[in-house]
C-alpha cells in the first residue's frame, strides 16, 4: 500500500466552521470527512493521516502555516499527497494548491477550475470539481482514480484521458491529420467566421518605464550577438547559451578588430568580426557620449548568444541582466539584436 496524507481545511476535517477558521495546522489519525469516501475509492493507497488547517490561519500566516503543514506531512513519510476538494472556495483552494505544490511528493488537489487558488498549484495536478459541496459525489471518484494512477507509478496521460486540468505544459502527440490538413480546416473555419488556434501565443506585454532624458542618463550596451573578447575566455556557447556575461570596457572607445569576436552560431559573423562595433556599437555611442547626447556610458557591456535559446531561459537572462543593471544605476539600454 502506498502511504498518502490528505489535506483538508478545518470545516471538512470536522473541527468547526468559521469559528474554527483560526485553527493552526493539526494532525488527525487516518482519513476523516471526505477522506473516508476517498479512501473507499482508492486502489493501492492508504490515507495514513489527515493534516488540517484553518482557512484564516493559513491566509494570515501563510509561510508559517505551510512550513508546519509540510512538517506534519513529512513526518508521515508519505509517497502521495491529496488535498481537498476545495470546490469554489478561494482561500481553501489556494492552501490546497500550495500544499501539493510544496510537498515534494506526487500529489493532487481538487477544486473548481475557476478557483483563484488553482494557479498556485504549478506543476502539481488539479482535479476539476463542481463549484460547491454538491459536487462531492462526483469529485471523490475522480480524485481517487488519478491518485491511484499516481500511486501505481503509471505514466500520466493527457488532461482529458486522466481527468485533470491542463497545467499549460506543451506536450507532443500525433494528431489524426497532418498539420497542413488541420491548417486548411482551421482556415476554412476562420473564413466562415469561427477563429480557433492550436497555440495560444500571447506574448508578455511589458509596460515600459517612464522615458529618460538620454543626455542625462547612464546607458548600457546589451547584446545577444555572442560578442566576447577574442578567444572566448569564458566559453560562451555558440548555441543554447546557459547564461550571460558582463565585460568591463575600461576606457575603450571602440571594440577593436581582433580584440572581440562573435561566437554566435546562428548567423554569418564575418562582418561582425571584421568590425565588432557592428555587434556592440561602442564607437558610435562613445561619440554620442562625447557630444553630450548620452549622459554616461556604463563601464561594462552585457552579452549572451541568442540562438536556439528556450524562451524560458532567455526570459531569465533578461530579468537577471535588468536586475544587475538597475542595481548599478543604469537607466537606459541599447540592445543590439541579430
Amino acid at each position, binding site marked *: 500500500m502506498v502511504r498518502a496524507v490528505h489535506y483538508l481545511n478545518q470545516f471538512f476535517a470536522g473541527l468547526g466552521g468559521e469559528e474554527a477558521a483560526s485553527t493552526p495546522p493539526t494532525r488527525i489519525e487516518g482519513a476523516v470527512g471526505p477522506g473516508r469516501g476517498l479512501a473507499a475509492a482508492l486502489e493501492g493507497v492508504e490515507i495514513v493521516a489527515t493534516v488540517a488547517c484553518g482557512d484564516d490561519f493559513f491566509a494570515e500566516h501563510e509561510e508559517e502555516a505551510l512550513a508546519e503543514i509540510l512538517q506534519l506531512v513529512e513526518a508521515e513519510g508519505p509517497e502521495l499527497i491529496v488535498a481537498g476538494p476545495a470546490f469554489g472556495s478561494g482561500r481553501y483552494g489556494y492552501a490546497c494548491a500550495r500544499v501539493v505544490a510544496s510537498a515534494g511528493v506526487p500529489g493532487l488537489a481538487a477544486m473548481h477550475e475557476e478557483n483563484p487558488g488553482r494557479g498556485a498549484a504549478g*506543476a502539481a495536478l488539479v482535479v476539476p470539481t463542481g463549484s460547491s459541496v454538491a459536487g462531492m459525489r462526483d469529485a471523490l471518484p475522480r480524485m481517487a482514480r488519478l491518485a491511484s494512477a499516481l500511486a501505481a507509478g503509471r505514466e*500520466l496521460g*493527457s*488532461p482529458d484521458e486522466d481527468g485533470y486540468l*491542463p*497545467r*499549460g*505544459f*506543451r*506536450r*507532443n*502527440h*500525433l*494528431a*489524426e*491529420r*497532418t*498539420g*497542413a*490538413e*488541420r*491548417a*486548411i480546416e*482551421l*482556415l*476554412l473555419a*476562420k*473564413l*466562415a467566421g469561427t*477563429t*480557433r*488556434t*492550436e*497555440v*495560444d*501565443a*500571447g*506574448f508578455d506585454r511589458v509596460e515600459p518605464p517612464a522615458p529618460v532624458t538620454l543626455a542625462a542618463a547612464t546607458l548600457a550596451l546589451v547584446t545577444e550577438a555572442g560578442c566576447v573578447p577574442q578567444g572566448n575566455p569564458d566559453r560562451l556557447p*555558440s*548555441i543554447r547559451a546557459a547564461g550571460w556575461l558582463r565585460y568591463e570596457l575600461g576606457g575603450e572607445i571602440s571594440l577593436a578588430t581582433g580584440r572581440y569576436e562573435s561566437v554566435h*552560431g*546562428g*548567423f*554569418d*559573423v*564575418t562582418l561582425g568580426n571584421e568590425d565588432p562595433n557592428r555587434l556592440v556599437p561602442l564607437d558610435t555611442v562613445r561619440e554620442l557620449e562625447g557630444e553630450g547626447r548620452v549622459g554616461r556610458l556604463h563601464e561594462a557591456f552585457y552579452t549572451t548568444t*541568442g*540562438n*536556439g535559446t*528556450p*524562451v*524560458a*531561459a532567455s*526570459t531569465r537572462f533578461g530579468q537577471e541582466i535588468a536586475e544587475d543593471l538597475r542595481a548599478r544605476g543604469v537607466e537606459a539600454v541599447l540592445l543590439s539584436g541579430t
Partner: protein
Amino acid sequence: MSVLELASFPAELLRVDVSAIDALAGAEDALGGVRVDVVEPGEPVRITHILDAVEPRLRVGGGRTNRIDGVAVLSCVDFPGEERPLHEQEAFVDLAGPGAAFTPFSSLTNVVLTFVPGADAGHVELDRAVRRVTLAVAELLAEPTHDAEPRDVERFELGPAADTLPAVAALVQLSDLGQLYTVYVDGVPAGEAGLPRAVEPAALLDTAVTCGEYHWAALRNPTLFLQRSSLVRALFQEHGKRLRFAGLVLMRGYEQTAEDKQRAAERAAGLAVELGAGGAIITTDGGGNSHTDTMLTCRACERVGVRTAVIVAEMADPDSTNPGLTDWVPEADCIVSSGNAEELVPAWRPERVLGGDALLDGTSAQEAGPIPVRNYLGATNQTGHLALRATTW
C-alpha cells in the same frame, strides 16, 4: 507546367547499383567517395549527420514524372572542421525505438549515402557536390520505372471551381541565410530567386525546390517533404470541393534587414491578393529569425484582407508553460502547431549507426541519452507535412 502526372511505382523496383553511385561521386572533386547502405523500416539503426532526404524521381516527359513510393535517399556528411560562417546542426533518423515515430523515414526503405569529403574540399564545394550527387542518385534509382507499369497515377491539375468557394493560397517560406542554410528554387538560392513570387503549385511537387538548409533538424523541410507536400496535395484535393486553390507563393525566410522583411511580407500579401485569395496558409522554414518573416507576412496579409492560418513549431521547455515562439503578432490568431521541438525523446541504443558514429558534439551516437525532438530530421517541420502537434497538458 499546368498539369503534373505523378506515376507511382512500388519499392520492389529499387535496384541499388553501388558502382554507378560510386561513379557519380567519383566525378566530383570535392568528394573522396561515398558509402552506400540500404536500411529497411524496423531495423535497429540510427542514421546521423543527415543533410537531406530525396524521393527517387524521373521526369519522363509530357508532364509526367515517375516516383518510387516508399523509398528515400538520405545524404549524410560530416563536414570537416573548417572555419565557416554557418554550421550544420545534428540531424538524425531512428528506424526503430522511441524516435522512430517522429519521422516518416522509419517507415521507408532508406538508401543512405555517407559521403567522404575530398581532401582540402571547402564546405561550399562539398555541400554542392553532395546535393548534386544526391539528386543524381535519386534520379538513377528511378530509372527502372522506365520499363514498368505504374501502380497508380496522381494527376495534379486545377480545373474549374465554383466562385462561391473560398479561395485559398499557400504561402511557402524557404530559408536563405547563406551556405548550408539555404533552400534552392530550380537550383538557385532562395535569396536570389526573385522571391516572393507565385509559381505553379504542381512545380513544387515536381522537385522545383530542393533543401540545402541544415540548421535545426526538426525545423527543416527536406526535399522529400516538398516533393510530397501534404499542404499542396491537400489543397489540390480540396480544390473544387471545399475551396478554390488560388495558387502558391514562394517567399524567402531570413530576409536580412527589417526593411527587407517588411517589404517581402507586403509583397507576399500583395501576391496573395493578385491570386484572388481570401485566405492564405503561411508556412515557416527554420526558426527564430524566420519566425519574424512568418509573423510579418501574417500581419501584412490580414491588413489587406487575406485571412491567415500560420504553421509554426514550438520551442517550449518541458518545464515551462510558454509555447516558446520567438515572434508573434496579435493578427496570428489561427496557429497550427507542428509540435514542440524541445521535448526529449527517451534514450535508445541502436545496434548499428550509419552516417557517422560520433554526433557533432563528439558524443557516441549509439550511447546517446535522451535526445530532443529538434535533432530528428523534419520532425516538427513547419509546412504541416506531418501529424505531430503539441497540446496543453
